[in-house]
């Protein structure tokens, strides 16, 4: 009886939309008109032949391959640096984590200033050492890397904290034993610390990949998918389909189908990552 309210809430806000979304994905529907004829699996078969969906998927793959490895490697580096006994360590840890607590919109506003092609501090600074000027968000080739830099800045603190916690769980005795046996610091790190960080790495890979594939806020606010579709990613395209008519007046059903396709892709990605992860990750020391 005590769980009934929670069960009802979950049913209302999770299960109902999931079912309704699936029904919608079988219809040719706009969210304005009540006239929603069923079209069977048409919305699903349309995906592969839709150049905009293919472009969005390609952008998601590029973004994921740029974002996930670089943010995890950088986080590992930072976590090791922040795992030292030095003065002001708490301050440094806080500084690294603060961007996570900053809202996406604030991050977006800040980076739009920093990366402004004409007045931004990034081009000004790089200009001093003879580089640029770069177009950043304004250039079709530069927008995606700029987006990657912005989101890494925003999420690095989270990854770092996870690694930091994992690092503090690595038993000192192992490192000391290795040192007694004559191992260098690098080989200790590579053969002892790194394997023990396996579970954390797996978590971060899975988590970052899911976030990367679902990228939306930054794109919506900063680049709006542009310039010329260079940063159009799946969730942004789904939003455009469902809530605007710039990709067709009755595209909400198709948007729902794409959302389901995205769900399946993420599910498969995650299962593959866990399967691969379980073959290389050691859970006990």
């Amino acid at each position, binding site marked *: 009886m005590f769980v009934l309210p929670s069960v009802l809430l979950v049913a209302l806000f999770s299960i109902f939309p999931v079912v309704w979304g699936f029904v919608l994905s079988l219809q040719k529907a706009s969210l304005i*008109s*009540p*006239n929603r004829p069923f079209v069977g699996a048409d919305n699903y078969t349309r995906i592969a032949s839709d150049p905009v969906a293919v472009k969005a998927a390609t952008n998601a793959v590029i973004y994921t391959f740029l974002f996930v490895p670089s943010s995890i490697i950088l986080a590992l580096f930072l976590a090791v640096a922040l795992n030292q006994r030095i003065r002001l360590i708490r301050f440094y840890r806080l500084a690294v984590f603060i961007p996570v607590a900053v809202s996406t919109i604030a991050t977006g506003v800040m980076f739009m200033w920093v990366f402004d092609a004409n007045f931004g501090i990034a081009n000004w600074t790089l200009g001093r050492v003879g580089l640029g000027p770069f177009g950043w968000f304004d250039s079709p080739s530069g927008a995606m890397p700029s987006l990657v830099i912005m989101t890494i800045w925003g999420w690095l603190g989270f990854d770092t904290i996870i690694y930091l916690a994992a690092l503090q769980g690595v038993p000192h005795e192992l490192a000391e034993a290795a040192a007694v046996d004559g191992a260098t610091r690098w080989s200790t790190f590579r053969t002892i610390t790194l394997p023990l960080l396996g579970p954390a790495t797996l978590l971060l890979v899975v988590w970052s990949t899911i976030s990367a594939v679902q990228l939306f806020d930054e794109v919506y606010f900063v680049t*709006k998918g542009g310039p010329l579709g260079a940063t159009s990613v799946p969730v942004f395209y789904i939003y455009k389909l469902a*809530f*605007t008519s*710039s990709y067709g*007046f009755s595209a909400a059903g198709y948007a729902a189908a794409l959302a389901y396709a995205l769900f399946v892709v993420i599910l498969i990605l995650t299962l593959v990552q866990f399967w691969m992860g379980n073959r290389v990750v050691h859970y006990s020391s």
Partner: protein
Amino acid sequence: MRRTHRAKRKLVVPAVAAIALIAVACTSGSDSGSTSASGSAGGSGAPIELTMWHGYGDVIDNQGQTNYEAKSLTDLVNEFNDANPGIHVNLVYTAVNDHALEKLTVGMQGGQQPDIAYQYGTSIPQLSTAPSIMDLTDRVQDPSFKWDDFVQGARDAATFDGHVYGIPALIDNLAIVYNKDMFASAGIDPPTADWTWDDFRAAAQTLTDPSKQQWGWAFPTDATEDTVWHYDAMLWEAGGDILNADNTQAAFNSPAGVEALTALQQMAVTDKSVYLDQQNTGKTDQLFNSGNIGMLVTGPWALSAYPDVDYGVQVMPTFGNGPHTTIAGPDMWVMFDNGDGRADAAWQFMSWLTAAQQVKADSMEAGHLPTRTSVGQAPGFQEAFDKKFPGEGLFVQNLENVTKARPVLPTYDEISRIMGEAIVTVMLGQAEPQQALDDAATKVNAVLAGG
């Protein structure tokens, strides 16, 4: 199509604003509620509550400045509420206008649509499919409403398939707004009514100085409707059309379309005299106001954003001997029937709000061009209007150059997106005008064929 230059600053406040406005509206309403009800809409008892969504922002913006567009509307609503105890209109600021259709779409999902909503005219064909939208065709024919008094282009935009679904809320048009001081210091003559686009291009080039972060012109290149309607005016001036006469085929890839886009290409790519505003979140207005941009092609709503500039206003340049065609973006009040006699009450309010006297009051308070011809043509109006809002008088005259309208189609947003992508591709130097327009025409034809 009133885009707000305040869009960026307001992002954080809409929710707070909405709550505040509801609170304000409710408080002010309680006074009138106590007087005996004799409004035509109801007998005694609680007044009929109406909800009205708009995109003008807060009366006092988050920089402490009075927002006269919002103030004008709020004052009028309060005046109506005081005079009509049987009806109470609640004014709610929901979102900037670029997101008005999204807000309404989401609202309708939960059956939470307002009684009256501010919408772009281009959204009318889509909204006509909403189950509870009010078909105003018969109501506007009431002689006392004087439907024919509204500007022609606005009436056309309110009508889809012979049915009227909106009442004009705002009209505007595009003209050159230029910085007098920048022209003087560059030693060139300011724009005249005889200017061609070649003159415009030459001036833009002279005004451009990269070392001083100075551009001759600015253009919104975010590939939205804002990009497209700037191009539309040029397309029409060159003698072209967006679609053919019966809206079945793309027509913008004509020689006229190429001429218009080539003019943009020459300035943006060859001369680099155009500041390309990719995000289009208000930076252009700031740069014009700070003296970094010499000329803009913009509308009457923008003038209040340039307090620091001594600006002039001039009609659009022509292509040779062609017309000064401009484009108007009529915005609409769209109404929904939410039952319980609210439709009649909403109509009573709307016919009062858009009557000549209130239209004139709103123009003089907010600087909006009058939506009714009788107001704009009244003796002395243009002089008084131009005196209070320098430059606005030309925008009133410029309404005469509004001779064409965008196609009224449910697929218009999709056509606009395709055209916007083509224009931006060319302006970023990634395609040639003819090729880009031909590709876009192929896609538009597929959309029109129902593909």
